[in-house]
């Protein structure tokens, strides 16, 4: 016991309770906020009976920057860079959700070519986010090798982003009505070469993990959250699909050119950490499929408008609207209230990480402290989005 106290956190209040695993008292301990497996600054107050978790209470807000307050002080185009910093490993989908809601309220049409490039950026972002997730989730459970493999591919994606918009993480790559920049020459060919290669790279990750006995022992049956509980907690994204529920914003509430693209929604059935891993791996393959189709389309249509007719000063009419995208973490939505001015009156982010994290106590109850590391990893939170 003293070992865990030393590595995980400090001993807090101690409470008497009759029947416990080791015949000892229940103990409260702090997990984080400065713990590598919390992927940021997340504190979880654990009540443990020996090694077993009696209750887990997440304590968040360490990264709260008042983003929603800042939105209200910026004009509509100035908001976009702020959205990069929500889920900072998936900036393109954040940009996308935001511009979608403004376009919805303005009633703008987006040129086809811009739609395809947006989808390319989204799917590249999904791949890079899932690769980062795979690397960190595996390293949390002691598998170091996938980290080097996935970062090798993630690097190529970040280089492609850098080629396109100059930034690697905080992309600021979309504009209301379309895009700022046309693709650079030769970019599509580079993307295609990478994408075609990606299939065999995903096989390599699977070789390392899918039938790996330690990986399976650490993940199968850990952190189960079935469909009904997922919906009760508002959990979306891979955790919901791993529970066997086939629901994806790209299909359920289609946006951009997704209806024209051929892809499947992978689902799991056991709703545990292992199935969430399988779902994300399958999503990597589906994103690859989408990227190849987009490469074909963009090669066949090499020119065209990338920005619709956008008023110089963006002033959506009085009213409110909500738009969402399927971010790598789940449904990412923006709720915009416009008072007719050039700044949002209120702009609310529906953060999938925040809402998915809420299910953590239920997923962790009864598991060992070391399983908590797997469960935090499997929800795939980014604290920039949780705390905003």
């Amino acid at each position, binding site marked *: 016991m003293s070992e865990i106290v030393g590595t995980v956190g400090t001993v807090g209040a101690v409470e008497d309770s009759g029947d416990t695993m080791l015949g000892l008292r229940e103990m409260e301990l702090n997990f984080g906020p400065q713990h590598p497996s919390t992927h940021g600054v997340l504190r979880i107050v654990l009540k443990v009976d020996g090694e077993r978790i009696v209750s887990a209470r997440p304590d968040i*807000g360490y990264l709260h920057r008042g983003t929603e307050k800042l939105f209200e002080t910026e004009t509509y185009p100035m908001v976009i860079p702020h959205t990069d910093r929500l889920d900072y490993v998936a900036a393109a989908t954040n940009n996308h959700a935001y511009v979608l809601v403004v376009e919805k309220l303005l009633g703008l049409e987006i040129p086809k070519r811009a739609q395809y490039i947006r989808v390319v950026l989204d799917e590249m972002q999904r791949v890079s986010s899932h690769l980062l997730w795979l690397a960190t989730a595996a390293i949390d459970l002691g598998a170091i090798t996938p980290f080097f493999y996935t970062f090798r591919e993630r690097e190529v994606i970040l280089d492609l982003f850098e080629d396109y918009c100059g930034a690697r993480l905080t992309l600021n790559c979309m504009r209301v009505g379309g895009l700022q920049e046309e693709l650079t020459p030769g970019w599509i060919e580079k993307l295609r070469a990478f994408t075609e290669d990606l299939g065999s790279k995903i096989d390599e990750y699977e070789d390392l993990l899918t039938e790996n006995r330690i990986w399976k022992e650490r993940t199968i049956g850990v952190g189960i959250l079935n469909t009904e509980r997922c919906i009760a907690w508002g959990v979306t994204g891979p955790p919901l699909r791993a529970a066997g529920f086939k629901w994806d914003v790209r299909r359920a509430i289609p946006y951009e050119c997704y209806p024209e693209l051929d892809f499947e929604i992978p689902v799991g059935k056991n709703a545990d950490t292992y199935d969430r891993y399988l779902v994300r791996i399958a999503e990597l393959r589906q994103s690859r499929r989408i990227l190849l189709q987009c490469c074909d389309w963009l090669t066949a249509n090499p020119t065209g408008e990338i920005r619709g007719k956008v008023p110089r000063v963006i002033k959506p009419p009085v009213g409110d609207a909500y738009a969402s995208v399927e971010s790598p973490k789940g449904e990412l939505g923006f*709720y915009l209230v416009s008072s007719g001015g050039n700044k949002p009156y209120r702009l609310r982010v529906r953060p999938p990480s925040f809402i998915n994290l809420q299910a953590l106590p239920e997923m962790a109850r009864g598991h060992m402290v070391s399983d908590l590391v797997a469960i935090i990893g499997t929800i795939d939170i980014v604290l920039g989005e949780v705390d905003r």
Partner: protein
Amino acid sequence: MADEPKDVAAGPPAGEPAKPAEPAKPVAPAAPAATPAAAVPKPAAPPKAPVPAPVDAMGEPLVAALAAAVPGAVLGARKMVGQTTVTLAPDKLVEACRHLKDEDTFTFLVDLTAVDWKERDPRFDVVYWLHSFARGNERVRLKVGVPDGAPCPTVSGVWETANWMEREVFDLFGIAFEGHPDLRRILTWDGFQGHPLRKDFPVEGIDTGAAIYPDRYPEGGGPGPGDKNRKTVS
């Protein structure tokens, strides 16, 4: 900040004091005001898409069914950009939500937030965004007007996910949710003074030292003269 007069003008339509039958009316005069501004940059843009404007949605089957099932709950309904917003009476909110969840299969609460209209009465709108998987991914938005200082009934008993969302609204807007099982601050810390997303909270923030230790820090913030944490600029 320059938008303030407009904000006030925009406030009433969303709120409950508007006549239940036609909440869309007060918005109509404001909408054309935005049109000339949008048309300025490109003179060659007359055949563009019309600016979205709200229309009355009391006749929608879902709204009519809700109004019939929970009498007195629906104060108004409007539709804009394909999204229906139903304004509810606060005292009927939980009953209406339960009906929507149990009878109309809105099992998924997508989002819950609030909007501060500052000078309007009631000051706040609490906004709910519901989703039904069984009705072909249909969504509906609910709104209740909550005066400053008044509690809003909790829906965390209907959708568990409302728990943290209501805590967030409590934290950032200062709206107390009556019956909430664990109403504590969530993004700011315990002991923080003020509610950052209220329109009268300064964007540049407040002195948090004074907020945590009001007795130790003098009015206006910063460590007092005898405090060892006081930094002196030489």
